[in-house]
């Protein structure tokens, strides 16, 4: 069981709710994924379309809500979105996303740290989305975030674990759960993240835009489970050297 801020999860696959063709497909895919925590975003209502309401299909007794601050371009926008979410009954958990560049949607490290500090002090459970920067992860842990969410690759690129080596470092140093988020394009990517020791993964695009999102959601569920099992079983390490050789000096000097 995974515990984040005192809350336990049986599933280590978290899912996003964006980019789906329809609310119904989203609903079925989320069910197939086995996910227990879903991200949602906050946006101005389209005054001309009252029916477009995700809340009508998302059963909050089945899915724990993790509102994100998607769209925030700086710390104060992110803090405002978080407070709006909490005031609306969205709970006090927030996935902190500060993304000033709309082309890459890469997270701003400076404003993420500033916003995280302010939100933690304001009683939020903060899960910051960050580039796979080990020092930033440590700085965020120092201010009291509940988890860190380093990206595998930029949002929507489906490229897999481009940031693998940094994520390894983050996992090795982490004092809070590590949730690999963004860029996971295939169940094998998710499995690899889990084999590396990640505590969970978050997947959105790869499921939402798959040919068969429901089937893909199930595939990710299986991949995450496989990866986690392998991690717990203790993988045999691959060796870079075909065989060990005695060092130049030899060890004859030892008495």
């Amino acid at each position: 069981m995974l515990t984040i801020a005192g809350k336990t999860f049986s599933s280590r696959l978290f899912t996003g709710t964006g980019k789906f063709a329809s609310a119904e497909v989203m609903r079925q895919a989320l069910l197939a994924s086995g996910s227990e925590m879903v991200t949602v975003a906050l946006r101005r209502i389209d005054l001309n379309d009252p029916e477009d309401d995700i809340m009508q299909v998302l059963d909050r007794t089945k899915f724990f809500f993790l509102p994100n601050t998607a769209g925030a371009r700086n710390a104060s926008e992110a803090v405002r979105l978080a407070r709006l979410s909490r005031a609306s009954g969205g709970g006090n958990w927030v996935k902190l996303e500060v993304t000033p560049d709309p082309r890459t949607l890469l997270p701003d490290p400076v404003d993420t740290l500033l916003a995280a500090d302010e939100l933690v002090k304001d009683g939020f459970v903060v899960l910051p989305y960050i580039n796979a920067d080990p020092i930033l992860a440590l700085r965020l842990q120092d201010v009291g975030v509940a988890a860190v969410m380093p990206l595998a690759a930029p949002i929507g690129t489906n490229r897999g674990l481009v940031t693998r080596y940094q994520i390894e470092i983050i996992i090795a140093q982490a004092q809070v759960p590590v949730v690999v988020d963004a860029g996971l394009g295939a169940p094998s990517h998710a499995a690899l993240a889990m084999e590396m020791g990640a505590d969970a993964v978050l997947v959105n695009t790869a499921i939402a835009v798959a040919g068969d999102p429901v089937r893909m959601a199930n595939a990710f569920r299986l991949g995450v489970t496989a990866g986690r099992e392998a991690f717990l079983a203790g993988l045999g390490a691959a060796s870079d050297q075909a065989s060990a050789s005695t060092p130049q000096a030899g060890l004859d000097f030892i008495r």
Partner: protein
Amino acid sequence: MMDAFSLPDFNELPQLIASRSKDDVLRALHGSHLSVSDLAALVSPVAEAYLPEMATKAQAITQQRFGRVIQIYAPLYLSNYCTNRCLYCGFSAENQIQRRCLTLEEVEDEANTLKQRGVNHLLLVSGEAPKKMGVDFIEQVALRLKDRFASLSIEVQPLTEAEYTRLFASGITSVAVYQETYDPALYQRMHLAGKKSDYAYRLETPARAAASGMREVGIGALLGLGDWRAEGLALGLHLAWLRKHFWRTGLTVSFPRIRPAEGGFQALVPISERNLTQLIFALRLFDHNVGLLLSTREEARYRNGMVGLGPTRYSAGSCTAPGGYAHEDQSAEQFAVDDHRSIAEVCAAIQGQGFDPVRKDWDSCFQEF
């Protein structure tokens, strides 16, 4: 609030080590992020047969991470007065030795002698006798010496965080404090009286030093007191905990091995050079970034051979008696040194191995106090 470091039941450590198989050793040898049970495998008897393979890997990691260099430092003993009665130590209050506490002028004399011999990294050492030589004195020493030396470390009695903060402000940037033995039962038997008999307080000291802002903290166990394999595993646990909780702090491990001293203490559990080597390799594989110190307790032959295989710092030209550098040795040593070479000779030997002896790494003027 951070929880203090605590060991699991020390008696469980030998069991963990004994349960490791050849496969566990092989997995530890080839893994990249080693766990505590990997370390247990590497210090186990089963791993002894793999010493050459451990050497190869330790060599690769050490050189990649640290380069082909060995940093040189020297200890400066400020005082051998001590209120503790540690069974194994030449400075024990029990021992009738000539006691000496240097004056500030004498300290400067000693320091200048070392500086002329090429030393820029000083380790200030003392017994534990705060009334004879307390934090005020160390502070004075630091203020006098800090501009002349690249760095000043201390190996003195455990201090409070506030005292470490004060010393940091005066120019001390590194603290060494060795648990001696991580076995609480053995610890009580070894430390009969004095403040050192408080196991828990000593155990928490590295964390206090790190919290005060010290750039570096050094830990170690006195090898030969208890089961070196279990001590090695405990060291690894302590090291990993410090890494996790004080990510900004540099960490080092020392390997003092019991040597002849006044009082005639013999090692309870002999640890051979081969054992020591295995321990050094194991810790290097476990933590790629930890500094590893080999002092003049070890012989020249051994220290020459180990260059490049794991250790990163060597003391040189050491005298473990207060006042022993500038003038002939008039007071007693803490332990007998076995590498009697001068600093110049040690550096030449390191160069002979194809390595660079670094006498100065850092400048006190860079440090923001």
